[in-house]
């Protein structure tokens, strides 16, 4: 059959090395082509499409139900049991005292931003540097070890982080920094949060650095730069859009974390006044350990105890809505960075 001299020479040799056909691969599946199979093929994509549309519907559904309950605080609805609140007294006031009819949520928003900011301050530089280390410097055994460490850190449940903070970090801090005064607050929450979000940042940063063209490395080395100079002056700037995405996603994880923070932050909605007291009388360090509260911790703390339809309950749902909208803004922001990316 084969006329070409080349293939007649090569083919038998190849055939000899191949294992028996049945060991090479399982028998090919049998493809029957009945009317049923053709119909199934024509319509099945609708099933898959329905699954995807369900996800879209979920996004909308969450928004709808949270908005329905959260915005009820500001509308004179029949289901409400208290007075109708104004946007200004909820979103622009630091006065949170639900039992005496004050519903300012700024302390929680401020608490969330402070804790998240501090956590990111710890996690972003270390996470990005670890990413560069894994992608560019670490020997291969260290690389796989670091991946496993990050996998474990991300898999540890938030309540276990919480109990670690509660039973080990709090006593330690109280004993060594605060002269045995009970410890809680921003700094400890931020410490725990930073460990919780660092795997997200590391894994995305590693991907970012591994995705850079090798020519950047080679070019800067050819110009005589050291490894660190290449990293600092070339690789990190080149990866900046994706590093920014990594930090924003880490931020999103931190701002939404509830249980671990709730267990260590001290749950004190009046933290602003207390912090002022601390900064007046004690060193700055003490202020970092002010017992405080965030959007998520306040939800965990108070939602089960408030009657449905009361302004208090409605405002808590408004805080949930705010968290959800923040998530959406952060995700859209990462899309924006992606567009600026240099290929």
């Amino acid at each position: 059959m084969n006329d070409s001299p080349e293939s007649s020479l090569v083919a038998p040799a190849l055939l000899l090395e191949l294992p028996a056909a049945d060991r090479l691969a399982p028998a090919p599946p049998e493809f029957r082509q009945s009317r049923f199979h053709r119909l199934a093929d024509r319509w099945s994509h609708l099933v898959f499409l329905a699954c995807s549309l369900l996800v879209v519907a979920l996004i909308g559904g969450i928004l709808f139900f949270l908005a329905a309950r959260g915005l009820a605080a500001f509308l004179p609805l029949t289901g409400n049991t208290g007075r109708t609140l104004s946007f200004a007294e909820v979103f622009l006031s630091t006065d949170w005292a639900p039992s005496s009819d004050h519903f300012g949520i700024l302390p929680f928003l401020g608490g969330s931003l402070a804790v998240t900011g501090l956590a990111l301050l710890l996690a972003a530089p270390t996470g990005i540097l670890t990413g560069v280390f894994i992608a560019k410097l670490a020997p291969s055994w260290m690389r796989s070890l670091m991946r496993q460490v990050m996998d474990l850190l991300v898999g540890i449940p938030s309540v276990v982080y919480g109990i670690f903070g509660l039973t080990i970090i709090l006593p330690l801090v109280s004993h060594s920094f605060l002269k045995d005064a009970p410890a809680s607050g921003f700094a400890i929450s931020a410490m725990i949060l930073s460990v919780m979000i660092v795997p997200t940042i590391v894994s995305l940063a590693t991907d970012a650095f591994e995705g850079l063209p090798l020519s950047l490395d080679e070019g800067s080395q050819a110009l005589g730069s050291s490894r660190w100079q290449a990293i600092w002056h070339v690789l990190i700037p080149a990866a900046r859009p994706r590093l920014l995405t990594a930090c924003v996603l880490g931020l999103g994880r931190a701002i939404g974390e509830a249980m671990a923070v709730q267990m260590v932050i001290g749950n004190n909605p009046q933290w602003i006044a207390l912090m002022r007291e601390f900064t007046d009388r004690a060193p700055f360090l003490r202020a970092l350990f002010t017992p405080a509260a965030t959007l998520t911790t306040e939800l965990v703390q108070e939602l089960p105890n408030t009657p449905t339809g009361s302004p208090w309950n409605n405002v808590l749902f408004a805080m949930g809505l705010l968290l959800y909208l923040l998530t959406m803004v952060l995700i859209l922001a990462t899309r924006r960075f992606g567009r600026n990316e240099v290929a």
Partner: protein
Amino acid sequence: MRAIATLRSPSRAKHVDKFMRGVLWVIALGFILVLAVFVGAILHQGWPVLRLDFLTRMPETLEAGGGIKPQIFNSIYLVLLSLGLSLPIGLGAGVYMAEYAGKGRTLNFFRLCIETLAATPSIVLALFGMIVFVQTLGWSFSIRSGALTLALLNIPVITRVTEVSLMSVPRELKEASYGLGATKLQTILKVALPYAATGILTGLVLTAGRAFGESAILVFTAGTNTSAIFPDFRLTVPGETLSVHLWYVTSDGTLPDAREIAAGTAAVMILVLLILNLSVRFLDRAIRRRTR
């Protein structure tokens, strides 16, 4: 320009390079140390509590000496139920995105939705589940409310894993399948999905671990009580899981031995997590052996 400027003093650059490499090693080793201290401390605290007795007794409400038997059951039951609910949906959505959505706007939009759902804080999902299942449908704090809300947490992860695993199926394999006369559906079901199965399974184990550790969602949907009967397979009873129990006993404060129970529960959870991670690595190795 700055890079060139520093070249004027190469010896300084060399010192900086050496120093910064050291810093990177220290940071990386620091994280390993953090993990080691963390796992070590949790296991050390929980070890004295971890007796068979603790795992097989019913919990107490006011006295010391309670166990965590129903919580273990509820954790496993809820994880399995939520995976059972989210697996078909996640698989379906993943198949659609990898095989049908093309590369245009539709795919981008679906990806955006999946990313948003994946990034949604679990406390927000908890509020949604509480409004819809607990209050509107009147299911109160129950296993079914918990399982359905927990499924929302799993869906984006399973979708993403399915999509990525299907993308990694070699094109030749699919083309060969078409060449044998298979329809697109047959190619997906009999060629692509079996090839991607190990990858999806790995993702599934990780999802199970995440669902197992989730607490915020379940506090608001499955409640902080357990049925007095064991094992109780009814979907209408409240179902406190291990992670919720750990949180509840520490924040509630009515149990005299809350600290011990929390420490023991945390140790159990860490052990389960370690086992899940080991099995993921085992699966991973199996995949690599097969694809090599």
